[in-house]
């Protein structure tokens, strides 16, 4: 079980998220929904230890995670940031290898596994990551995060700026990972169709807090909620 308890954090003295609590079971896919600026990205950054923490804690199987971002990654948190942030002057292979090395894993095996799981990257294995298309970079960012062998994978707007065929491919990849039932996944998204195809449950954020927790069926059936909170 992955838990966030009473998370309060922000930038400098500004609090962006307040008293956020949520949990994700092993093998579960949970969506984090809400309009722009409600704090989805900030919450994911809080979980990764990338912003100032004013209170709360993040724990995995009941054990609190260390404060350092790098240590959290080594403890089992994988993160695909909004905007991909691949290392542009590293090749595709090197991007994956860097993640494996960072978490003390074998780089050769990690690269072989990633290229087997993401065939779209095979032809570009020795290309600089900065030369890839946005969609290819997104897939590389997911492959890189998975190379750390995470127990919890967090994806921030994975479908943003990506062509529909690649979005479908990403959904397929995440679906396959979901079927393995060993990885918990949190997806922060505004693309509702993408989320509903993967997540069983969603936390809806508003004003830096969790406004509601809903199942997929409740969300699909609640047009007012869809309209009010998501603007769709």
């Amino acid at each position, binding site marked *: 079980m992955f838990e966030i308890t009473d998370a309060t954090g922000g930038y400098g003295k500004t609090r962006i998220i307040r008293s956020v609590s949520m949990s994700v079971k092993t093998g579960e896919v949970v969506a984090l929904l809400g309009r722009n600026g409600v704090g989805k990205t900030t919450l994911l950054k809080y979980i990764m230890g990338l912003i100032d923490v004013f209170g709360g804690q993040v724990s995995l199987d009941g054990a609190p995670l260390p404060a350092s971002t790098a240590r959290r990654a080594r403890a089992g948190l994988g993160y695909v940031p909004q905007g991909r942030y691949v290392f542009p002057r*590293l090749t595709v292979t090197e991007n994956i290898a860097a993640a494996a090395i960072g978490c003390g894993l074998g780089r050769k095996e990690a690269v072989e596994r990633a290229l087997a799981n993401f065939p779209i990257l095979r032809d570009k294995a020795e290309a600089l990551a900065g*030369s890839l298309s946005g969609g290819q970079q997104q897939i590389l960012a997911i492959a*890189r995060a998975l190379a750390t062998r995470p127990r919890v994978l967090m994806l921030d707007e994975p479908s943003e700026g990506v062509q529909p065929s690649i979005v479908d491919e990403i959904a397929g990849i995440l679906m396959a990972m979901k079927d393995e039932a060993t990885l918990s996944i949190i997806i922060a998204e505004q693309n509702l169709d993408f989320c509903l195809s993967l997540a069983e449950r969603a936390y809806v954020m508003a004003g830096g807090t969790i406004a509601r927790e809903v199942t997929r069926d409740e969300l699909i059936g609640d047009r007012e909620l869809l309209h009010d909170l998501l603007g769709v």
Partner: protein
Amino acid sequence: MELDYLATVLLSSLSSASVLLIATVGLAIVFGLMGVINLAHGEFIMFGAYVALFATRNGVPFPLAVVLASVVTALFGAIVERAIIRHLYGRILDTLLATWGLSLVLYQSAVLIFGTVTPGVGMPQSNIEIGNYTLSTYLLFLILVAVVLIGLLYWLLTRTGYGIVARAAIQDPQTAATIGIESGRINTATFALGSGLAGFAGAILLPAFPATPSMGFAFVIKAFLAVVAAGPVTLSGTVVAGGALGSIASMTASFYTTVMGDVVFFLATITILRIFPLGISARWRLKL
């Protein structure tokens, strides 16, 4: 123009370019790759030269003294990074002032300890005859040193786990942290690597350029200009920019005067930066 003269000028120019590259690669790592303006780079070269000089004067064979100088300067660089540089990442002006202050301390310390003139290492000098002209064998050997050094450095930074992680951490420390990379340790190691290369330069150049407190100053300005002209693809850019600028300046000096050689060096740098404001490698699709 006679063929032997032309061959001598070409080899001499290549040798000068190699000397510049040997003195520059450390800065290419620290300034080009890490973005740290280390104004004490010249004094790190001087530091390595004095370590090698001290070692040889105490009976250490010269090749071992070069290794020792590289390691000691690398350790000194690691201490400097931990004590000074790491507190100033992202603060360019503060880094510039701090490393300038460090350069003054190192320079004055060398003057106080060793004086302004120091005897050389006393290695036997040999020359190679090319027709009517002669060239120092050691200066030609430095061409080989430069080639091997750059080859090794390229291998280290592109083929080893450290190199891949270092380039990732330097390109984007925050993202690197999200995949488990401790940027702090990597930065210390990389600054130490750059410092060690400066120490290596001071030591390996010692038979041709005797150790003096101000010896680093002779290299550091041209080294900075070569790295700036190189642009974002640090190592390949530095090889091309440093090699071209060093060769052009040396050839000019051969035909005219040393001063004219320096003038041409600076004019060529200005011209390169007018044509390529971000450096010659701004559009290169290379990793390093």
